């Protein structure tokens, strides 16, 4: 019964979405308040039905109901309970259900918290949301029904792919989808504004928190995915420039640009047409990501079996929404009123600079990801575009952007003073040069790139703090006064400083890990010792150990530093009999922000085991940087002006400095 219930709830959600996609739109055209208000209630009801459908699938997984094809293919009765929950979205059908669940969640949130939106805008936004929802409900029901039954229920399931049997699966996909799908809100707002033909600073103020939320989740999702790949795949790499990774990076970069251009629109009523375009492009890239991941047109180390009919269906969705969105844009955008003007050297100018470089960097990732596909279609040659390509293109484009980061917040709106900003940044430049020289001195003849990268990272970090330090008068006035002023600063200013600081942290981690990573690959017998950067690891022995649905071979290592025992590490290899697969469980030893990384290979004919050992300096800064960046986003989100939102007269807003 449960699967049929879930299936039926999904069909009802589609029916509700069809109503929500049409009636409010008609209401907005005829200015009929009753018809427009249909949008809110259908959005909430839709969410309830999708949630019920999702709960039904989850119940099937928890109960190990192998009469459901999807459960049979991706679950096993002996699997730990937490993986029974997470394997709901550890497969194509279930993850699409999670996709629409999150889409419906965002729709419901707009319905709940959009009370201060003008009625027609709210109706249009929710109607556009429902179009997207309809397309994906149809996609699930027609090509990827998660509730399909098997005529004869097998006694045991085929187990979840062992690589996915990890806590990473609980965290990464939901976060990523919250990001991907969250951008649908900015898309819907843009399309609604184009339909209305009206757009102003208040619009930007409504859109910005939604964009910020999506951006934060996407950042966390990408970072968690990267950390998961780092410890689970056993190669010690955290970013592979794999098409699937690029597919999530592109909307994030475009979303970063969107956040910044929306600031200009909100404060200065300029860049409107550009902001709308960016919002459409950002969600288009999210859809493109879904297409690339779901259709399997690209070869990726993450590619699993795929079904071409799904690819064609998603391609259809892609063409309709991206093509339709851009066509509507081309038709209606010229009608939007031009905004204010500004000098090239100004806060607006700096944000435009940011947008130019971010979109150019995004474009290079786009080319690198899709070029192999185009080339194969045109010439039949098969190529792979990997890290060297992206290091040569993406890297150089980010350098000017990073140099410019500290300047942005120091420039005034309308007309800024570049020289003045430069003078205020002297401390940052000086510390950056000190860091560069210190790195040169310490590493003596190491990689050339490292000192410059570290210097730039320190400059960005210090530079990000200059604005709050100056505004609070820290080091100039008594500490208590500075603290009081710090509380008085708008949270969005803190958010900016923290997020920019985090960009420096991330860069520091990336440079340190990529330039100073030490690697040893050796074959070891019990009693052997391998050393890296002052750590001596002795293999004490190999022991087999049973797990719930796997067997594992554990290697026990004692880690010593200068003769003293630091820790014991137990990397292992797991074999999952159901799927005839094995996975490598790396062991990590964290010391400060650096890590020792130990993983196992095969046991050779002579009884020796292959061991891969890395020392990764400052590697944790990569993910900590992402987390701190998200904290910056959260601070900015808590800014009072975004909560008060809505079109208050400028004078009144000015009287309410954030707490």
């Amino acid at each position: 019964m449960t699967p049929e219930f879930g299936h039926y709830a999904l069909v009802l959600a589609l029916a509700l979405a069809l109503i929500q996609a049409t009636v409010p739109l008609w209401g907005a055209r005829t200015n009929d308040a009753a018809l427009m208000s249909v949008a809110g209630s259908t959005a909430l009801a839709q969410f309830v039905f999708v949630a019920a459908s999702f709960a039904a699938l989850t119940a099937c997984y928890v109960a190990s109901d192998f009469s459901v094809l999807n459960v049979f293919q991706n679950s096993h009765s002996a699997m730990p309970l937490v993986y029974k929950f997470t394997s709901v979205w550890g497969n194509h059908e279930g993850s699409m259900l999670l996709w629409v669940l999150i889409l419906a969640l965002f729709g419901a949130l707009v319905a709940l918290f959009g009370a201060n939106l003008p009625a027609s805008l709210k109706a249009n936004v929710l109607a556009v949301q429902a179009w997207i929802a309809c397309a994906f409900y149809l996609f699930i029901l027609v090509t990827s029904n998660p509730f399909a039954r098997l005529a004869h229920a097998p006694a045991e399931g085929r187990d979840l792919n062992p690589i996915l049997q990890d806590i990473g699966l609980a965290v990464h996909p939901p976060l990523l989808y919250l990001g991907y799908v969250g951008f649908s809100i900015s898309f819907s707002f843009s399309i609604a504004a184009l339909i209305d033909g009206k757009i102003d600073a208040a619009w930007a103020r409504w859109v910005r928190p939604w964009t910020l939320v999506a951006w934060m989740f996407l950042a966390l999702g990408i970072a968690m995915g990267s950390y998961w790949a780092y410890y689970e795949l056993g190669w010690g790499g955290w970013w592979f420039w794999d098409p699937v990774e690029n597919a999530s990076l592109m909307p994030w970069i475009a979303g970063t640009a969107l956040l910044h251009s929306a600031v200009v629109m909100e404060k200065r009523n300029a860049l409107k047409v550009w902001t709308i375009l960016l919002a459409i492009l950002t969600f288009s890239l999210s859809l493109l990501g879904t297409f690339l991941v779901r259709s399997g047109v690209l070869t990726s180390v993450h590619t699993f079996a795929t079904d071409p009919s799904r690819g064609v269906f998603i391609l259809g969705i892609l063409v309709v929404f991206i093509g339709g969105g851009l066509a509507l844009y081309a038709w209606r955008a010229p009608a939007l009123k031009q905004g204010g003007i500004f000098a090239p050297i100004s806060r607006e100018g700096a944000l435009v600079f940011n947008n130019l470089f971010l979109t150019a960097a995004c474009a290079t990732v786009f080319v690198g990801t899709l070029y192999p596909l185009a080339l194969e279609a045109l010439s039949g040659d098969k190529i792979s575009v990997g890290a060297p390509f992206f290091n040569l293109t993406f890297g150089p484009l980010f350098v000017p952007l990073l140099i410019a980061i500290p300047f942005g917040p120091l420039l005034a709106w309308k007309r800024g003073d570049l020289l003045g900003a430069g003078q205020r940044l002297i401390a940052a430049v000086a510390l950056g040069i000190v860091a560069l020289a210190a790195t040169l001195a310490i590493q003596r003849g190491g990689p050339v790139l490292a000192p410059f990268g570290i210097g730039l990272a320190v400059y960005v970090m210090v530079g990000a703090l200059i604005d709050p330090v100056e505004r609070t008068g820290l080091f100039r006035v008594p500490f208590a006064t500075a603290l009081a002023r710090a509380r008085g600063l708008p949270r969005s200013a803190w958010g900016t400083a923290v997020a920019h600081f985090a960009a420096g942290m991330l860069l520091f981690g990336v440079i340190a890990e990529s330039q100073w990573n030490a690697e040893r690959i050796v074959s070891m017998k019990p009693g052997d010792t391998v050393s890296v950067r002052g750590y001596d690891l002795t293999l004490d022995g190999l022991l087999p150990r049973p797990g719930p649905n796997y067997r594992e071979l554990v290697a026990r290592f004692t880690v010593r530093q200068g003769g003293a025992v630091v820790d014991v590490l137990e990397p292992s290899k797991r074999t999952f009999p159901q799927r005839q697969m094995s996975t490598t469980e790396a062991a990590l030893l964290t010391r400060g922000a650096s890590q020792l990384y130990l993983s196992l290979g095969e046991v050779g004919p002579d009884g020796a085991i292959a061991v891969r050992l890395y020392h990764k300096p400052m590697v944790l800064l990569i993910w900590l940087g992402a987390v701190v960046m998200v904290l910056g986003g959260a601070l900015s989100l808590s800014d009072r002006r975004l909560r008060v939102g809505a079109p208050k007269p400028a004078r009144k807003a000015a009287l309410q400095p954030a707490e």
Partner: protein
Amino acid sequence: MTRKQRRLTLIGAGLGVLGLAAGLVLYALNDAIVFFNSPTDVLEKNVAPGARIRLGGLVKPGTLTRGDNLNVRFEVTDGNKSVLVTHVGILPDLFREGQGVVTEGALEPGGTFKAETVLAKHDETYMPKEVADALKKQGHWKTEGGYGLAGPSKGAAK
């Protein structure tokens, strides 16, 4: 500055950055991409020794030998021709004889292929697309039962 001049500055800057990006992309596309070859391609196209390429196909059953110090040798075949591959290091978890594999490296003057990386696949039902195409070209593509049956999705896998 008038509105027109400002707009021109903006457009100029935009074109400048896009031009820079395009230049970098073109340079990198000349320099930093790797072509995929099947064993037949390698032998027929006379790929120059030392050029960085990808070689993909099936691991020929019975050819995998493990030497000392993590040296491994195996043959990659597309059913028509096969190429001997040497590699030093740890093979991925799902490396199996008779299964698809993609390796990246360069040909040595003697005609063996020295692989720097051997790429993993993440699922037992998955075959790298290039390998599948290369096998189809040689007429060795078998659609056995279970192949292409929905495995775990890769989006969730990442």
